Protein backbone atom coordinates (compact mmCIF):
# COMPACT_ATOMS: atom_id res chain seq x y z
CA UNK A 1 0.00 0.00 0.00
CA UNK A 2 1.25 3.41 -0.93
CA UNK A 3 0.46 6.39 1.24
CA UNK A 4 -2.35 8.54 -0.06
CA UNK A 5 -0.16 11.64 -0.06
CA UNK A 6 2.62 10.04 -2.07
CA UNK A 7 0.21 8.67 -4.64
CA UNK A 8 -1.49 12.08 -4.91
CA UNK A 9 1.88 13.69 -5.66
CA UNK A 10 2.70 11.07 -8.27
CA UNK A 11 -0.69 11.57 -9.92
CA UNK A 12 0.08 15.27 -10.00
CA UNK A 13 3.39 14.55 -11.73
CA UNK A 14 1.63 12.44 -14.29
CA UNK A 15 -0.84 15.30 -14.90
CA UNK A 16 2.09 17.69 -15.43
CA UNK A 17 3.66 15.26 -17.90
CA UNK A 18 0.38 15.28 -19.85
CA UNK A 19 0.54 19.08 -20.01
CA UNK A 20 4.08 18.78 -21.39
CA UNK A 21 2.84 16.25 -23.94
CA UNK A 22 0.46 18.84 -25.38
CA UNK A 23 3.03 21.58 -25.04
CA UNK A 24 5.42 19.56 -27.22
CA UNK A 25 2.99 19.84 -30.11
CA UNK A 26 3.79 23.53 -30.55
CA UNK A 27 6.33 22.46 -33.16
CA UNK A 28 7.05 19.24 -35.03
CA UNK A 29 10.61 19.11 -33.63
CA UNK A 30 9.49 18.96 -30.00
CA UNK A 31 6.39 16.88 -30.67
CA UNK A 32 8.00 13.45 -30.50
CA UNK A 33 9.53 14.27 -27.13
CA UNK A 34 6.10 15.48 -26.01
CA UNK A 35 4.54 12.17 -26.93
CA UNK A 36 7.18 10.43 -24.84
CA UNK A 37 6.25 12.59 -21.83
CA UNK A 38 2.67 11.53 -22.34
CA UNK A 39 3.63 7.86 -22.32
CA UNK A 40 5.71 8.28 -19.15
CA UNK A 41 2.80 10.09 -17.49
CA UNK A 42 0.49 7.21 -18.34
CA UNK A 43 2.91 4.58 -17.05
CA UNK A 44 3.29 6.46 -13.76
CA UNK A 45 -0.48 6.78 -13.35
CA UNK A 46 -1.04 3.06 -13.93
CA UNK A 47 1.76 1.94 -11.58
CA UNK A 48 0.68 4.28 -8.82
CA UNK A 49 -2.84 2.88 -9.08
CA UNK A 50 -1.55 -0.68 -8.77
CA UNK A 51 0.51 0.24 -5.73
CA UNK A 52 -2.17 2.28 -4.00
CA UNK A 53 -4.86 -0.35 -4.43
CA UNK A 54 -2.26 -2.82 -3.17
CA UNK A 55 -4.39 -5.81 -4.05
CA UNK A 56 -2.06 -8.23 -5.79
CA UNK A 57 -4.40 -11.18 -5.54
CA UNK A 58 -5.43 -13.36 -8.46
CA UNK A 59 -7.65 -10.49 -9.65
CA UNK A 60 -4.50 -8.55 -10.38
CA UNK A 61 -3.44 -11.14 -12.95
CA UNK A 62 -6.74 -10.64 -14.74
CA UNK A 63 -6.12 -6.89 -14.73
CA UNK A 64 -2.84 -7.51 -16.51
CA UNK A 65 -4.40 -9.96 -18.94
CA UNK A 66 -7.15 -7.53 -19.93
CA UNK A 67 -4.60 -4.74 -20.16
CA UNK A 68 -2.54 -6.79 -22.57
CA UNK A 69 -5.58 -7.80 -24.62
CA UNK A 70 -6.69 -4.19 -25.02
CA UNK A 71 -3.15 -3.02 -25.59
CA UNK A 72 -2.53 -5.52 -28.37
CA UNK A 73 -5.76 -4.59 -30.10
CA UNK A 74 -4.81 -0.92 -29.84
CA UNK A 75 -1.26 -1.46 -31.08
CA UNK A 76 -2.50 -3.60 -33.95
CA UNK A 77 -4.95 -0.90 -35.03
CA UNK A 78 -2.36 1.85 -34.67
CA UNK A 79 0.09 0.13 -36.99
CA UNK A 80 -2.42 -1.05 -39.56
CA UNK A 81 -4.64 1.99 -39.95
CA UNK A 82 -4.09 3.95 -43.19
CA UNK A 83 -3.55 7.66 -42.63
CA UNK A 84 -6.60 8.53 -44.71
CA UNK A 85 -8.73 6.79 -42.09
CA UNK A 86 -7.55 8.97 -39.20
CA UNK A 87 -10.91 10.75 -38.73
CA UNK A 88 -12.73 7.43 -38.32
CA UNK A 89 -10.04 6.16 -35.99
CA UNK A 90 -10.20 9.20 -33.74
CA UNK A 91 -14.00 9.05 -33.65
CA UNK A 92 -13.79 5.36 -32.77
CA UNK A 93 -11.29 6.01 -29.99
CA UNK A 94 -13.49 8.76 -28.55
CA UNK A 95 -16.34 6.31 -28.29
CA UNK A 96 -14.12 3.96 -26.25
CA UNK A 97 -13.19 6.68 -23.76
CA UNK A 98 -16.87 7.54 -23.41
CA UNK A 99 -17.89 3.94 -22.82
CA UNK A 100 -15.03 3.39 -20.37
CA UNK A 101 -16.26 6.40 -18.39
CA UNK A 102 -19.77 4.93 -18.31
CA UNK A 103 -18.46 1.55 -17.11
CA UNK A 104 -16.37 3.09 -14.36
CA UNK A 105 -19.34 5.16 -13.22
CA UNK A 106 -21.57 2.07 -13.20
CA UNK A 107 -19.04 0.14 -11.20
CA UNK A 108 -18.72 2.98 -8.70
CA UNK A 109 -22.49 3.12 -8.40
CA UNK A 110 -22.85 -0.61 -7.77
CA UNK A 111 -19.92 -0.85 -5.40
CA UNK A 112 -19.22 2.59 -3.92
CA UNK A 113 -17.34 1.08 -0.99
CA UNK A 114 -14.39 0.08 -3.18
CA UNK A 115 -14.04 3.68 -4.22
CA UNK A 116 -14.54 5.05 -0.71
CA UNK A 117 -17.74 6.80 -1.69
CA UNK A 118 -20.15 5.38 0.88
CA UNK A 119 -22.40 2.34 0.67
CA UNK A 120 -24.93 1.31 -2.00
CA UNK A 121 -28.07 3.36 -1.56
CA UNK A 122 -26.18 5.86 0.56
CA UNK A 123 -23.58 7.36 -1.73
CA UNK A 124 -22.15 10.75 -0.84
CA UNK A 125 -24.19 13.43 -2.59
CA UNK A 126 -21.24 15.16 -4.25
CA UNK A 127 -19.89 11.85 -5.54
CA UNK A 128 -23.29 10.89 -6.88
CA UNK A 129 -23.59 14.15 -8.79
CA UNK A 130 -20.07 13.80 -10.17
CA UNK A 131 -20.61 10.21 -11.21
CA UNK A 132 -23.94 11.04 -12.87
CA UNK A 133 -22.24 13.79 -14.87
CA UNK A 134 -19.39 11.46 -15.81
CA UNK A 135 -21.79 8.70 -16.85
CA UNK A 136 -24.12 11.00 -18.79
CA UNK A 137 -21.35 12.83 -20.67
CA UNK A 138 -19.56 9.54 -21.26
CA UNK A 139 -22.69 7.98 -22.72
CA UNK A 140 -23.27 10.99 -24.98
CA UNK A 141 -19.64 10.78 -26.13
CA UNK A 142 -20.03 7.09 -26.85
CA UNK A 143 -23.19 7.11 -28.93
CA UNK A 144 -22.27 10.40 -30.64
CA UNK A 145 -18.86 9.06 -31.62
CA UNK A 146 -20.35 5.84 -32.90
CA UNK A 147 -22.60 7.82 -35.25
CA UNK A 148 -19.68 10.03 -36.30
CA UNK A 149 -17.64 6.89 -36.95
CA UNK A 150 -20.38 5.31 -39.05
CA UNK A 151 -20.83 8.50 -41.08
CA UNK A 152 -17.10 8.91 -41.67
CA UNK A 153 -16.67 5.26 -42.55
CA UNK A 154 -19.49 5.60 -45.06
CA UNK A 155 -21.55 2.84 -43.43
CA UNK A 156 -24.13 5.50 -42.70
CA UNK A 157 -24.94 8.23 -45.21
CA UNK A 158 -23.15 11.51 -44.50
CA UNK A 159 -26.33 13.39 -45.33
CA UNK A 160 -27.97 15.15 -42.42
CA UNK A 161 -30.96 13.27 -41.01
CA UNK A 162 -33.62 15.71 -39.88
CA UNK A 163 -37.23 15.34 -38.85
CA UNK A 164 -39.93 17.58 -37.55
CA UNK A 165 -39.75 18.52 -33.90
CA UNK A 166 -36.14 17.35 -33.67
CA UNK A 167 -34.93 20.33 -31.70
CA UNK A 168 -37.90 20.20 -29.34
CA UNK A 169 -37.31 16.52 -28.71
CA UNK A 170 -33.59 17.08 -28.05
CA UNK A 171 -34.35 19.95 -25.69
CA UNK A 172 -36.87 17.79 -23.79
CA UNK A 173 -34.35 14.98 -23.45
CA UNK A 174 -31.66 17.33 -22.18
CA UNK A 175 -34.08 18.72 -19.60
CA UNK A 176 -35.04 15.19 -18.60
CA UNK A 177 -31.34 14.40 -17.99
CA UNK A 178 -31.12 17.27 -15.52
CA UNK A 179 -34.37 16.23 -13.83
CA UNK A 180 -33.27 12.57 -13.66
CA UNK A 181 -29.96 13.57 -12.08
CA UNK A 182 -31.83 15.62 -9.50
CA UNK A 183 -34.17 12.76 -8.56
CA UNK A 184 -31.36 10.24 -8.64
CA UNK A 185 -29.53 12.30 -6.04
CA UNK A 186 -32.53 12.56 -3.77
CA UNK A 187 -33.68 8.93 -4.05
CA UNK A 188 -30.43 7.04 -4.83
CA UNK A 189 -32.59 4.77 -6.95
CA UNK A 190 -30.59 2.49 -9.23
CA UNK A 191 -33.45 2.41 -11.75
CA UNK A 192 -33.10 6.13 -12.26
CA UNK A 193 -29.36 5.67 -12.76
CA UNK A 194 -29.94 3.16 -15.56
CA UNK A 195 -32.59 5.37 -17.15
CA UNK A 196 -30.19 8.31 -17.00
CA UNK A 197 -27.54 6.34 -18.87
CA UNK A 198 -30.04 5.07 -21.46
CA UNK A 199 -31.39 8.55 -22.11
CA UNK A 200 -27.85 9.91 -22.45
CA UNK A 201 -27.03 7.28 -25.06
CA UNK A 202 -30.14 8.33 -26.92
CA UNK A 203 -29.35 12.04 -26.90
CA UNK A 204 -25.78 11.45 -28.11
CA UNK A 205 -27.24 9.62 -31.07
CA UNK A 206 -29.87 12.30 -31.76
CA UNK A 207 -27.40 15.18 -31.51
CA UNK A 208 -25.10 13.82 -34.20
CA UNK A 209 -27.51 12.43 -36.83
CA UNK A 210 -28.62 15.85 -38.16
CA UNK A 211 -25.02 16.95 -38.77
CA UNK A 212 -23.72 16.53 -42.32
CA UNK A 213 -20.50 14.80 -43.37
CA UNK A 214 -18.54 17.94 -44.09
CA UNK A 215 -19.25 19.34 -40.63
CA UNK A 216 -17.41 16.40 -39.14
CA UNK A 217 -14.35 18.49 -38.19
CA UNK A 218 -16.56 20.33 -35.69
CA UNK A 219 -18.25 17.14 -34.51
CA UNK A 220 -15.01 15.27 -33.90
CA UNK A 221 -13.51 18.20 -32.01
CA UNK A 222 -16.67 18.52 -29.97
CA UNK A 223 -16.69 14.83 -29.07
CA UNK A 224 -13.01 15.15 -28.18
CA UNK A 225 -14.02 17.86 -25.76
CA UNK A 226 -16.88 15.76 -24.32
CA UNK A 227 -14.58 12.80 -23.71
CA UNK A 228 -12.44 15.17 -21.65
CA UNK A 229 -15.33 16.44 -19.55
CA UNK A 230 -16.48 12.85 -18.97
CA UNK A 231 -12.99 11.96 -17.73
CA UNK A 232 -12.98 15.01 -15.47
CA UNK A 233 -16.36 14.02 -14.01
CA UNK A 234 -15.00 10.59 -13.16
CA UNK A 235 -11.83 12.26 -11.86
CA UNK A 236 -13.88 14.19 -9.31
CA UNK A 237 -15.66 11.01 -8.27
CA UNK A 238 -12.37 9.19 -7.74
CA UNK A 239 -10.73 12.27 -6.25
CA UNK A 240 -7.90 11.72 -8.69
CA UNK A 241 -5.76 14.69 -9.70
CA UNK A 242 -4.29 13.11 -12.84
CA UNK A 243 -7.76 12.46 -14.18
CA UNK A 244 -9.04 15.93 -13.27
CA UNK A 245 -6.08 17.67 -14.93
CA UNK A 246 -6.31 15.50 -18.03
CA UNK A 247 -10.05 15.93 -18.30
CA UNK A 248 -9.68 19.71 -18.16
CA UNK A 249 -6.87 19.68 -20.73
CA UNK A 250 -8.72 17.46 -23.18
CA UNK A 251 -11.99 19.29 -22.61
CA UNK A 252 -10.49 22.68 -23.39
CA UNK A 253 -8.44 21.31 -26.26
CA UNK A 254 -11.52 19.93 -27.99
CA UNK A 255 -13.43 23.13 -27.32
CA UNK A 256 -10.69 25.26 -28.90
CA UNK A 257 -10.52 23.00 -31.94
CA UNK A 258 -14.30 23.22 -32.40
CA UNK A 259 -14.02 26.98 -32.16
CA UNK A 260 -11.26 27.10 -34.79
CA UNK A 261 -13.28 24.85 -37.09
CA UNK A 262 -16.45 26.93 -36.71
CA UNK A 263 -14.49 30.09 -37.43
CA UNK A 264 -13.05 28.43 -40.52
CA UNK A 265 -16.62 28.08 -41.78
CA UNK A 266 -17.82 31.42 -40.40
CA UNK A 267 -20.62 29.66 -38.59
CA UNK A 268 -21.61 29.71 -34.98
CA UNK A 269 -21.21 26.59 -32.93
CA UNK A 270 -24.97 26.33 -32.46
CA UNK A 271 -25.57 26.68 -36.15
CA UNK A 272 -23.41 23.61 -36.76
CA UNK A 273 -24.85 21.62 -33.87
CA UNK A 274 -28.44 22.31 -34.79
CA UNK A 275 -27.48 20.77 -38.10
CA UNK A 276 -29.27 20.25 -41.35
CA UNK A 277 -26.89 22.58 -43.18
CA UNK A 278 -27.12 22.26 -46.93
CA UNK A 279 -30.45 20.49 -47.02
CA UNK A 280 -32.43 23.73 -46.98
CA UNK A 281 -30.09 25.70 -49.22
CA UNK A 282 -29.96 23.28 -52.10
CA UNK A 283 -33.11 24.46 -53.88
CA UNK A 284 -32.10 28.10 -54.10
CA UNK A 285 -28.61 27.27 -55.27
CA UNK A 286 -29.81 25.03 -58.05
CA UNK A 287 -31.98 27.71 -59.66
CA UNK A 288 -29.07 29.87 -60.70
CA UNK A 289 -27.26 26.88 -62.10
CA UNK A 290 -28.01 27.62 -65.72
CA UNK A 291 -25.79 26.19 -68.38
CA UNK A 292 -22.84 28.52 -67.98
CA UNK A 293 -19.79 28.01 -70.16
CA UNK A 294 -17.06 25.95 -68.57
CA UNK A 295 -13.59 25.43 -69.97
CA UNK A 296 -12.40 21.92 -69.55
CA UNK A 297 -9.04 20.45 -70.39
CA UNK A 298 -6.95 17.33 -70.10
CA UNK A 299 -3.69 16.37 -68.45
CA UNK A 300 -1.61 17.67 -71.36
CA UNK A 301 -3.11 21.16 -71.08
CA UNK A 302 -2.52 21.13 -67.34
CA UNK A 303 1.07 19.97 -67.74
CA UNK A 304 1.68 22.68 -70.33
CA UNK A 305 0.40 25.39 -67.98
CA UNK A 306 2.49 24.09 -65.10
CA UNK A 307 5.66 23.73 -67.14
CA UNK A 308 5.47 27.38 -68.10
CA UNK A 309 4.75 28.57 -64.57
CA UNK A 310 7.33 29.84 -62.16
CA UNK A 311 5.25 29.22 -59.07
CA UNK A 312 2.46 26.75 -58.34
CA UNK A 313 0.23 26.54 -55.27
CA UNK A 314 -1.49 23.27 -54.45
CA UNK A 315 -4.88 23.40 -52.71
CA UNK A 316 -5.78 19.97 -51.34
CA UNK A 317 -9.16 19.01 -49.89
CA UNK A 318 -11.17 16.01 -48.79
CA UNK A 319 -11.31 14.71 -52.37
CA UNK A 320 -7.56 14.14 -52.22
CA UNK A 321 -8.03 11.92 -49.19
CA UNK A 322 -10.85 9.99 -50.85
CA UNK A 323 -8.79 9.43 -54.01
CA UNK A 324 -5.67 8.64 -51.93
CA UNK A 325 -3.87 11.04 -54.25
CA UNK A 326 -1.29 12.43 -51.81
CA UNK A 327 1.61 10.27 -53.03
CA UNK A 328 0.86 10.92 -56.69
CA UNK A 329 0.65 14.59 -55.83
CA UNK A 330 4.06 14.64 -54.20
CA UNK A 331 5.57 12.91 -57.26
CA UNK A 332 4.08 15.58 -59.47
CA UNK A 333 5.52 18.28 -57.22
CA UNK A 334 8.95 16.61 -57.28
CA UNK A 335 8.92 16.75 -61.07
CA UNK A 336 7.89 20.41 -60.97
CA UNK A 337 10.67 21.22 -58.54
CA UNK A 338 13.20 19.57 -60.82
CA UNK A 339 12.12 22.11 -63.43
CA UNK A 340 12.84 24.93 -60.95
CA UNK A 341 9.22 25.70 -60.31
CA UNK A 342 8.41 26.95 -56.82
CA UNK A 343 5.67 24.88 -55.22
CA UNK A 344 3.81 25.41 -51.96
CA UNK A 345 0.68 23.94 -50.40
CA UNK A 346 -2.25 25.95 -49.06
CA UNK A 347 -4.41 24.39 -46.35
CA UNK A 348 -7.80 25.71 -45.36
CA UNK A 349 -8.67 25.17 -41.67
CA UNK A 350 -11.68 23.00 -42.50
CA UNK A 351 -10.17 21.10 -45.43
CA UNK A 352 -10.78 17.40 -44.88
CA UNK A 353 -12.82 15.70 -42.21
CA UNK A 354 -10.88 16.61 -39.09
CA UNK A 355 -8.54 19.39 -37.90
CA UNK A 356 -5.12 19.00 -39.53
CA UNK A 357 -6.30 16.14 -41.75
CA UNK A 358 -4.54 17.42 -44.90
CA UNK A 359 -1.28 18.10 -43.05
CA UNK A 360 -1.06 14.50 -41.90
CA UNK A 361 -1.70 13.14 -45.38
CA UNK A 362 0.92 15.40 -46.91
CA UNK A 363 3.38 14.45 -44.18
CA UNK A 364 2.67 10.81 -44.97
CA UNK A 365 3.58 11.47 -48.60
CA UNK A 366 6.90 12.93 -47.40
CA UNK A 367 6.00 16.54 -48.10
CA UNK A 368 8.25 18.66 -45.86
CA UNK A 369 6.07 20.55 -43.37
CA UNK A 370 7.75 23.87 -44.14
CA UNK A 371 6.27 23.81 -47.63
CA UNK A 372 2.76 23.59 -46.22
CA UNK A 373 1.06 26.84 -45.24
CA UNK A 374 -2.09 27.83 -43.39
CA UNK A 375 -4.68 30.09 -44.98
CA UNK A 376 -3.58 33.38 -43.43
CA UNK A 377 0.08 32.76 -44.26
CA UNK A 378 -0.40 32.03 -47.93
CA UNK A 379 -3.53 33.85 -49.05
CA UNK A 380 -1.62 36.89 -50.31
CA UNK A 381 0.62 34.72 -52.47
CA UNK A 382 -2.14 33.58 -54.81
CA UNK A 383 -2.07 36.94 -56.61
CA UNK A 384 1.58 36.37 -57.54
CA UNK A 385 1.32 32.69 -58.36
CA UNK A 386 0.96 31.40 -61.89
CA UNK A 387 -1.00 28.23 -61.32
CA UNK A 388 -3.26 27.01 -58.53
CA UNK A 389 -3.89 23.27 -58.55
CA UNK A 390 -7.13 22.58 -56.66
CA UNK A 391 -7.31 18.91 -55.84
CA UNK A 392 -10.36 17.72 -53.97
CA UNK A 393 -11.25 21.05 -52.39
CA UNK A 394 -14.37 22.94 -53.40
CA UNK A 395 -16.36 25.19 -51.07
CA UNK A 396 -13.21 26.58 -49.44
CA UNK A 397 -12.23 28.14 -52.78
CA UNK A 398 -15.65 29.55 -53.70
CA UNK A 399 -15.37 33.32 -54.34
CA UNK A 400 -19.11 33.62 -53.69
CA UNK A 401 -18.21 33.65 -49.99
CA UNK A 402 -16.78 37.12 -50.55
CA UNK A 403 -19.21 38.54 -53.08
CA UNK A 404 -22.72 37.25 -52.52
CA UNK A 405 -24.33 38.14 -49.19
CA UNK A 406 -27.24 35.81 -50.09
CA UNK A 407 -24.98 32.79 -50.15
CA UNK A 408 -25.07 30.45 -47.16
CA UNK A 409 -21.28 30.46 -47.06
CA UNK A 410 -21.03 34.26 -47.24
CA UNK A 411 -18.33 35.50 -44.89
CA UNK A 412 -16.51 32.19 -44.69
CA UNK A 413 -12.77 32.77 -45.07
CA UNK A 414 -11.70 31.25 -48.38
CA UNK A 415 -8.47 30.66 -50.20
CA UNK A 416 -8.13 33.38 -52.86
CA UNK A 417 -7.49 30.85 -55.59
CA UNK A 418 -9.24 32.95 -58.24
CA UNK A 419 -6.47 35.56 -58.05
CA UNK A 420 -4.01 33.16 -59.64
CA UNK A 421 -3.17 33.61 -63.31
CA UNK A 422 -4.68 30.22 -64.02
CA UNK A 423 -6.59 27.75 -61.90
CA UNK A 424 -6.57 24.02 -62.52
CA UNK A 425 -9.55 22.44 -60.82
CA UNK A 426 -9.58 18.66 -60.55
CA UNK A 427 -13.08 17.33 -60.02
CA UNK A 428 -15.12 14.38 -61.12
CA UNK A 429 -18.09 16.42 -62.30
CA UNK A 430 -19.64 19.85 -62.00
CA UNK A 431 -21.73 18.84 -59.01
CA UNK A 432 -21.73 21.36 -56.18
CA UNK A 433 -19.94 20.76 -52.89
CA UNK A 434 -21.55 19.53 -49.71
CA UNK A 435 -23.17 22.88 -49.02
CA UNK A 436 -25.08 22.49 -52.28
CA UNK A 437 -23.61 25.74 -53.49
CA UNK A 438 -22.43 26.15 -57.04
CA UNK A 439 -18.77 27.18 -57.17
CA UNK A 440 -18.38 30.42 -59.07
CA UNK A 441 -14.77 29.49 -59.72
CA UNK A 442 -15.79 26.86 -62.31
CA UNK A 443 -17.01 29.54 -64.71
CA UNK A 444 -14.12 31.96 -64.42
CA UNK A 445 -12.05 32.91 -67.46
CA UNK A 446 -8.85 31.69 -65.88
CA UNK A 447 -10.19 28.34 -64.68
CA UNK A 448 -9.54 25.10 -66.49
CA UNK A 449 -11.64 22.21 -65.25
CA UNK A 450 -9.99 18.79 -65.24
CA UNK A 451 -12.77 16.25 -65.04
CA UNK A 452 -11.19 13.08 -63.68
CA UNK A 453 -10.30 11.15 -60.59
CA UNK A 454 -7.81 13.20 -58.57
CA UNK A 455 -5.16 10.50 -58.41
CA UNK A 456 -5.45 9.49 -62.06
CA UNK A 457 -5.29 13.09 -63.25
CA UNK A 458 -2.27 13.90 -61.08
CA UNK A 459 -0.42 10.87 -62.42
CA UNK A 460 -1.27 11.80 -65.99
CA UNK A 461 0.00 15.34 -65.49
CA UNK A 462 3.28 13.99 -64.13
CA UNK A 463 3.68 11.84 -67.23
CA UNK A 464 3.15 14.86 -69.45
CA UNK A 465 5.58 17.14 -67.62
Amino acid at each position, binding site marked *: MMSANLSAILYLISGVLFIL*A*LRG*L*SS*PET*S*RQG*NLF*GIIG*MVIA*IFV*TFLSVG*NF*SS*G*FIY*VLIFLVI*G*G*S*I*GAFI*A*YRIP*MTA*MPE*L*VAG*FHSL*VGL*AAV*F*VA*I*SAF*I*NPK*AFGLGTPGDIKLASLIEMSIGAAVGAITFSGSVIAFLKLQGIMSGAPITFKGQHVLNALILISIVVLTFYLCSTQSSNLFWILIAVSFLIGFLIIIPIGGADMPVVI*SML*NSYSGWAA*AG*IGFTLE*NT*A*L*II*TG*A*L*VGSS*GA*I*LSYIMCKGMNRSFFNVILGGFGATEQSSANQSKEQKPVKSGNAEDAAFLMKNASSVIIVPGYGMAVAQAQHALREMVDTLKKNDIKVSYA*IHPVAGRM*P*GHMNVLLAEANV*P*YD*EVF*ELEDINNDFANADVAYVIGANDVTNPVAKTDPQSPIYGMPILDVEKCKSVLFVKRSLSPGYAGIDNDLFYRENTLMLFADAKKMTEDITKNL
Partner: protein
Amino acid sequence: MEIDPFIFRLSIFILSIFVGYYVVWSVTPSLHTPLMSVTNAISSVIIVGAIIAALSGGKGVIFSSSSIFGFLAIVLAAVNIFGGFLVTQRMLAMYKKKKKD
Protein backbone atom coordinates in the same frame (compact mmCIF):
# COMPACT_ATOMS: atom_id res chain seq x y z
CA MET B 1 -13.38 26.71 9.41
CA GLU B 2 -11.95 23.99 7.26
CA ILE B 3 -12.05 24.06 3.49
CA ASP B 4 -13.74 21.12 1.81
CA PRO B 5 -11.16 19.11 -0.22
CA PHE B 6 -13.61 19.36 -3.10
CA ILE B 7 -12.71 23.05 -3.39
CA PHE B 8 -9.04 22.12 -3.88
CA ARG B 9 -9.94 19.71 -6.64
CA LEU B 10 -12.16 22.31 -8.21
CA SER B 11 -9.23 24.78 -8.11
CA ILE B 12 -6.99 22.26 -9.86
CA PHE B 13 -9.70 21.67 -12.43
CA ILE B 14 -10.27 25.36 -13.19
CA LEU B 15 -6.57 26.14 -13.37
CA SER B 16 -6.00 23.15 -15.65
CA ILE B 17 -8.65 24.47 -18.02
CA PHE B 18 -6.67 27.68 -18.24
CA VAL B 19 -3.40 25.81 -18.73
CA GLY B 20 -5.08 23.73 -21.44
CA TYR B 21 -6.44 26.86 -23.08
CA TYR B 22 -3.02 28.49 -23.44
CA VAL B 23 -1.13 25.32 -24.28
CA VAL B 24 -3.57 24.29 -26.99
CA TRP B 25 -3.59 27.71 -28.65
CA SER B 26 0.16 27.38 -29.03
CA VAL B 27 -0.18 24.07 -30.88
CA THR B 28 0.67 24.58 -34.54
CA PRO B 29 -2.37 23.96 -36.80
CA SER B 30 -0.47 21.40 -38.85
CA LEU B 31 -0.32 19.18 -35.76
CA HIS B 32 -4.03 19.36 -34.94
CA THR B 33 -4.64 15.74 -35.92
CA PRO B 34 -1.86 14.41 -33.65
CA LEU B 35 -3.25 16.73 -30.96
CA MET B 36 -6.58 14.94 -31.19
CA SER B 37 -5.04 11.49 -31.09
CA VAL B 38 -2.78 12.32 -28.15
CA THR B 39 -5.59 13.93 -26.14
CA ASN B 40 -7.47 10.77 -26.87
CA ALA B 41 -4.65 8.70 -25.46
CA ILE B 42 -4.20 10.76 -22.31
CA SER B 43 -7.90 10.91 -21.55
CA SER B 44 -7.67 7.15 -21.22
CA VAL B 45 -5.99 7.76 -17.90
CA ILE B 46 -9.53 6.89 -16.87
CA ILE B 47 -8.01 3.41 -16.71
CA VAL B 48 -7.08 4.41 -13.16
CA GLY B 49 -10.75 4.21 -12.28
CA ALA B 50 -11.13 1.00 -14.26
CA ILE B 51 -8.34 -0.69 -12.30
CA ILE B 52 -9.85 0.31 -8.96
CA ALA B 53 -13.21 -1.01 -10.18
CA ALA B 54 -11.72 -4.29 -11.40
CA LEU B 55 -10.00 -4.95 -8.08
CA SER B 56 -13.10 -4.03 -6.07
CA GLY B 57 -14.28 -7.61 -5.69
CA GLY B 58 -12.58 -8.10 -2.36
CA LYS B 59 -11.02 -11.30 -1.04
CA GLY B 60 -11.52 -14.37 -3.20
CA VAL B 61 -14.01 -12.69 -5.51
CA ILE B 62 -12.56 -11.87 -8.91
CA PHE B 63 -15.67 -11.36 -10.98
CA SER B 64 -18.38 -9.46 -9.19
CA SER B 65 -20.95 -7.29 -10.93
CA SER B 66 -18.88 -4.19 -10.28
CA SER B 67 -15.51 -5.67 -11.20
CA ILE B 68 -16.77 -6.97 -14.55
CA PHE B 69 -17.49 -3.41 -15.61
CA GLY B 70 -14.00 -2.55 -14.41
CA PHE B 71 -12.40 -5.26 -16.53
CA LEU B 72 -14.38 -4.15 -19.58
CA ALA B 73 -13.31 -0.56 -18.99
CA ILE B 74 -9.67 -1.70 -18.72
CA VAL B 75 -9.86 -3.30 -22.15
CA LEU B 76 -11.43 -0.20 -23.71
CA ALA B 77 -8.99 2.20 -22.08
CA ALA B 78 -6.01 -0.01 -22.96
CA VAL B 79 -7.03 -0.06 -26.63
CA ASN B 80 -7.07 3.69 -26.47
CA ILE B 81 -3.82 4.14 -24.59
CA PHE B 82 -1.75 1.91 -26.85
CA GLY B 83 -3.60 2.84 -30.01
CA GLY B 84 -3.58 6.55 -29.23
CA PHE B 85 0.08 6.93 -28.32
CA LEU B 86 1.34 4.64 -31.07
CA VAL B 87 -0.68 6.22 -33.84
CA THR B 88 0.46 9.64 -32.63
CA GLN B 89 4.05 8.41 -32.69
CA ARG B 90 3.53 7.10 -36.19
CA MET B 91 2.11 10.39 -37.41
CA LEU B 92 4.75 12.55 -35.75
CA ALA B 93 7.52 10.47 -37.27
CA MET B 94 6.28 11.54 -40.70
CA TYR B 95 6.65 15.27 -40.14
CA LYS B 96 9.96 16.14 -41.72
CA LYS B 97 11.68 19.35 -42.61
CA LYS B 98 12.84 20.19 -46.10
CA LYS B 99 16.16 18.49 -46.84
CA LYS B 100 18.88 21.00 -47.50
CA ASP B 101 20.36 20.04 -50.81
